C-alpha cells in the first residue's frame, strides 16, 4: 500500500474503524459534511473576486488545512509546502473571478488549483535533481501530527478514511502515486509494473468507488 494512503488509514484504525464504517454513506451525513464547504465557500469566493479581504480571510480559514495538508502530502517538505500554499492563495486572490460555479464547487476549484501547483512544484524539484539529496532526505521526515482544527471534524476525517480503506490495494496505490506523489500515469504503471490499461481502469474504478462511498454527486 502506498505511503500516503497508509498514513491516511492509520488514524481511524486507532480510533475505531467500525464506528466510521457505520456512518451513513448517503443522505444527511454527507449533506452536513459538504455543507461547510460548498455554499459558504461559493459566497466567500465571490467576495474574494470583489477584492474583499475579509472574505479572503474567511475563505482561508475555512480551507487552509485542506489545502496545506494536501500540498504537504504531495511535496513532503514544510518549506515548499508553505511557499506553495502561499502561492495558491495569492492566485486565488488574483483569479477568484474566473471561478464558475457551473463547473463545480468552490472547494473543488480551490483544491484543483492547489493540486496543480503542488504537482508542478514537485516535478520542478525533481527536474532540479534535488530529489535524491535535499528532497529525498526531506521525504524521510514525517509530517508533524495532524493538528485538529475546527473546520474538519474527526468524524468527517474518519469517514473519508474509511472510504479510502474500502478500495482495493491496487486502486489505492494508483491514487496514491498519481494524486499524492504527482506521478504521471505512465510513471505509475512503471512503478507498479502494471500495464497502462490496467492503471487507467484501476484509477477509474477506484475513483468511482470513492465517489460512491463519499456520496459525491
Amino acid at each position, binding site marked *: 500500500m502506498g505511503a500516503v494512503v497508509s498514513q491516511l488509514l492509520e488514524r481511524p484504525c486507532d480510533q475505531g474503524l467500525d464506528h466510521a464504517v457505520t456512518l451513513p454513506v448517503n443522505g444527511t451525513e454527507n449533506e452536513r459534511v459538504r455543507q461547510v464547504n460548498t455554499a459558504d465557500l461559493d459566497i466567500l469566493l465571490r467576495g474574494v473576486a470583489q477584492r474583499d479581504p475579509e472574505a479572503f480571510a474567511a475563505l482561508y480559514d475555512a480551507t487552509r488545512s485542506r489545502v496545506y495538508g494536501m500540498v504537504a502530502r504531495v511535496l513532503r517538505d514544510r518549506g515548499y509546502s508553505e511557499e506553495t500554499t502561499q502561492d495558491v492563495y*495569492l492566485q486565488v486572490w488574483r483569479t477568484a473571478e474566473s471561478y464558475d460555479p457551473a463547473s463545480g464547487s468552490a472547494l473543488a476549484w480551490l483544491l484543483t488549483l492547489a493540486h496543480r501547483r503542488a504537482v508542478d512544484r514537485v516535478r520542478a524539484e525533481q527536474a532540479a535533481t534535488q530529489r535524491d539529496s535535499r528532497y529525498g532526505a526531506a521525504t524521510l521526515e514525517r509530517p508533524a501530527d495532524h493538528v485538529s482544527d475546527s473546520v474538519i471534524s474527526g468524524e468527517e476525517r474518519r469517514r473519508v478514511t474509511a472510504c479510502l480503506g474500502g478500495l482495493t490495494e491496487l486502486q489505492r496505490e494508483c491514487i496514491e502515486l498519481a*494524486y499524492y506523489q504527482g506521478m504521471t500515469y505512465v510513471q505509475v504503471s512503471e512503478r507498479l509494473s502494471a500495464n497502462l490499461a490496467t492503471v487507467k481502469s484501476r484509477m477509474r474504478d477506484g475513483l468511482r468507488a470513492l465517489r460512491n462511498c463519499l456520496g459525491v454527486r
Partner: protein
Amino acid sequence: MTHSYDNTAGADLLDLAVPYAFHALPDDERDELEDRIATAGLAVADAFYDEVRAVRETMAVASAASAEEPPAELRGRLLSAVADDNVRFLRTPNRRRTVWMSAAAALVVGLITVGIGVSLRPPAQTPSTAEQVFAASDVHTISGAIPAGGTATVVFSRDRNAGVLVMNDVPPPGPGTVYQMWLVSDTGATSAGTMDAQAVAPSTTAVLTDLGNSKKLKFTVEPGSGSTQPTGQVIAELPLI
C-alpha cells in the same frame, strides 16, 4: 456516475478522465487529449468533463483525510499581502516560476528561502520587525536592479519607522571592501549596516530600523569594515517614497 458511450474512442477518452483530473498526464498528452475531445462530439466531451468534475469533487471531499494546519504565520503574511494594494509589483528575478506575486509576498518567499526566521527574528513571540512592516497599513515596496547584477528590494513602513531589505544575486564586494547601506535624508547619510562577501550571496536580508525622515536608501562600496560617511562608489539608490 454511469455514462453511456457508444464507441470505443469515447471509452478510451473516458479512461483518461482520472489522469487528466489528477494532473497525471504530461503536458503534450494533455493538450492532445483536449484536442481529441474537442473533435469527438458534444456527448463525449460532456461525459469526459462530467467525469473530470466528479473526480475533482471527490478529491476535494477526500482532502479532509489529509488536512493539516499550516504554520500560523502564513495567515498574517497572506492577509497583509492582499491588503497591500499600494504595493508596487516586481518580478522575482531568480526563481524558476514566472508567476507574478505581490512584492510583499515575493519578499516573504525570499525570507523563507534565506531563513530570515532563524537569523533575524527575535526569540520572543512578539511580531518581528519584518512582520510588523508587512502588516503595516502603509507598507511600500521598492525594487531596483543593481548595475553590477542582481536586485535590491526594500519593503518599508513609515508608520513602523522600519523596513526590510532583500538582495538577490548581487555579486560580492571586492576583497577588502564591503557594501554599506545608508539612509539618506536632507541632513545627511546615516549608516544602516554593511554586508561583506559572505553576507551577500546568493540572497541576503537586513532589517532597517529608524528610517526617520530618510528619502532614499543608498548602497556604496566602502573599504575595510565600512565607513562613518559614504566615501566609495555608489552602486545603487532606492527612493524611499
